[in-house]
């Protein structure tokens, strides 16, 4: 029972923090947003730092690190509200290394590790909302492998990614496939999302696909839980910085002849933000530490984590705006963008209410960190 970071993890944190502070300024971010919300060059810089290789097994050219290392990286990217979706590399590498046939792993994992291949999860459908078991996408047997027909929504960097992980119905059950964006039958429509990052609608019409696993629902659940752990970690970084910005502002801004940090009502608000931040950080650790637990235990743990994070993100985001007064709702001010990011994370991989339903449905008699 130990929550210290290793020296390597601390070095990783320092390296990513340095890159964010020096190489991913708010000005750079703003220009990326203006250009569409995704900069391949920035993603390549993450790869050069070794981040895309973090959770790829060593046998496939990766660094073979675990969820906690991924968590550290995501926290630091969250502090800079980085637009490029590193978490997708963690999702893809985790799912492929646990579910894909060896040949598929050998084909894709090294390229994910090097950053050459940006592989993203394309699972959202209109009718599914946050459920994973509702899937209208269809796979049919084809000449070499399978062909997918589907419309997947809000796919991160969907019109820029190299390949998609796509759940689809095969013989009455959900299976998981890999589809290359360059394949025939693939069309995309990209757009910027609320937090500035890029997403796309992806349509597949008999697009050739590689089968990853017929155990699709289990693989998808792992993918989403990995994504949730990533969201939690990222959110901690975002909130940490949001609180920092708020504290700095309150200690500078004067009204009635004194800094607003001296007003008790506002001080108590900050205490409550600190509370939410520390509860969130605690549950983010819990989420990453439970990622390798057996599926039912993992699912319950990640659902609990998302419920805590959802509440914390909303409170910290809303209050950081509130405590900034008018400038908190301007586009010009950096803090407002942290709020938008936190808002978007709520609706990523299931919102608070959805996961509360999961916690509720999976409740047992005994509860606790170890139960």
């Amino acid at each position: 029972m130990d929550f210290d970071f290793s020296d390597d993890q601390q070095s990783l944190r320092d390296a990513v923090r340095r890159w964010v502070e020096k190489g991913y300024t708010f000005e750079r971010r703003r220009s990326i947003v203006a250009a569409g919300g995704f900069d391949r060059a920035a993603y390549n810089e993450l790869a050069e730092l070794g981040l895309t290789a973090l959770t790829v097994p060593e046998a496939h050219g990766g660094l073979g690190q675990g969820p906690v290392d991924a968590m550290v990286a995501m926290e630091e990217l969250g502090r800079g509200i980085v637009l490029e979706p590193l978490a997708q590399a963690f999702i893809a590498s985790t799912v492929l290394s646990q579910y894909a046939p060896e040949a598929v792993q050998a084909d894709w994992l090294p390229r994910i590790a090097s950053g050459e291949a940006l592989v993203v999860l394309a699972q959202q459908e209109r009718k599914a909302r946050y459920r994973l078991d509702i899937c209208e996408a269809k796979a049919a047997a084809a000449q070499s492998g399978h062909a997918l027909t589907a419309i997947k929504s809000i796919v991160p960097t969907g019109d820029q990614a190299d390949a998609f992980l796509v759940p689809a119905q095969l013989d009455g059950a959900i299976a998981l496939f890999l589809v290359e964006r360059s394949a025939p039958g693939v069309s995309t429509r990209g757009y910027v999302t609320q937090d500035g990052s890029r997403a796309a609608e992806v349509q597949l019409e008999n697009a050739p696909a590689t089968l990853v696993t017929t155990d699709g629902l289990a693989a998808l659940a792992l993918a989403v839980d990995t994504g949730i752990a990533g969201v939690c970690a990222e959110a901690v970084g975002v909130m940490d910085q949001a609180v920092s910005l708020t504290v700095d502002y309150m200690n500078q801004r004067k009204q009635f002849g004194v800094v607003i940090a001296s007003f008790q009502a506002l001080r108590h608000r900050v205490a409550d933000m600190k509370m939410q931040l520390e509860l969130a950080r605690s549950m983010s650790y819990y989420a990453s530490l439970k990622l390798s637990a057996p599926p039912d235990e993992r699912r319950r743990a990640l659902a609990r984590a998302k419920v805590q994070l959802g509440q914390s993100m909303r409170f910290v985001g809303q209050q950081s705006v509130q405590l900034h007064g008018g400038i908190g709702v301007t586009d010009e001010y950096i803090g407002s963008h942290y709020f938008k990011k936190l808002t978007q994370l709520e609706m990523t991989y299931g919102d608070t209410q959805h996961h509360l339903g999961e916690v509720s449905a999976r409740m047992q008699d005994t509860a606790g960190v170890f139960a």
Partner: protein
Amino acid sequence: MDLAFTPEEQAFREMIRAWVKEHLPPEISHKVHNALRLTREDMQGWAKILGKKGWLGFGWPKEFGGPGWTAVQKHLFEEECALAGAPRIIPFGPVMVAPVIMAFGNAEQQQRFLPGIASGEVWWSQGYSEPGSGSDLASVKTRAERVGDHYVVNGQKTWTTLGQYGDWMFNLVRTSNEGKPQTGISFLLLDMKSPGVTVRPIKLLDGECEVNEVFFDNVKVPAENLIGEENKGWTYAKHLLSHERTNIADVNRSKRELERLKRIARAEGVYDDLRFRDQIALLEVDIVALEMLVLRVLSAEKSGKNSLDIAGLLKIRGSEIQQRYAELMMLAAGPFSLPFIEEAMEAGWQGDAAAGALSGFPGGSLANAPLASTYFNLRKTTIYGGSNEVQRNIVAQTVLG
């Protein structure tokens, strides 16, 4: 980073579990598990059982007879006791005054007072709050005037928890009016059987007299009962608060009460009502998050790296969770939490014999008898121990400066 306890820590937990199982009287754990009223004998009985094992002062330094447990071991000990339904340790002797006597008392005082505390034989009460001194504790007015070889104490303390059972009392008394209020306070130990001491119970919303007023009318207290130096009492009192105590989160008890909440919800038929169920689920998440926070603090203490400096968060959140499970239990029972039948809150109530078919607890479930009382009683948790508003001031200070 690793969630699991070490094999040694696990073995320690199992050892404690087995010992508690063997030594905790089932009549007592029955009362605790069902929130029935505990008698003085119940509470002091358990203290003496622990005392005999040398575990009442389980946090004491080894040189004073403590078992020398690590922060994790202390946490596991408290958890196993809580889960087994042991009564709370009455903290005033073993947890509050003993460390002050050890740190600031002289050898004679240590020899005189510590054994009685360690054994559970002597019941100690706390004399801090006064009618005019709650959050502003430094403003205490109870006066101790030095006259020859003793002090004459006049004044009044309030909110003295279980003072009606107290043998001895430790008091913050005013020995000087010069300078800032904090610099005129002394720490004085007082025999409650002294002439001039009057204890008057205060009835609370739950119908019980958990706290008291204590009046001092020219009470003579030997000068040897002064701890340390005159006018340094505030420093000694603050010493108590300076180390991070994760047990203020009370998360172990909250886990146990969450299980009880689910049992009650099932019995009342609301566990399958998704609207109610979701509220329990939310509380469950809150408890897991608090436990994670406690574990993080323990881990920081264990590795000695960075103290997390978040004791205030533990108190605020812990107290809110205590209130919430009490609230949900009462709401689960709904209208059947409303009958206030005091006998039904004592162990062994057989019903109202004369009432025939109507003799049982209204609605049929005796488990509902104490729920509203518990809810009313636990409104205190956000008020005592440094009100949550004051705690927020302290937390804000650490963040804003």
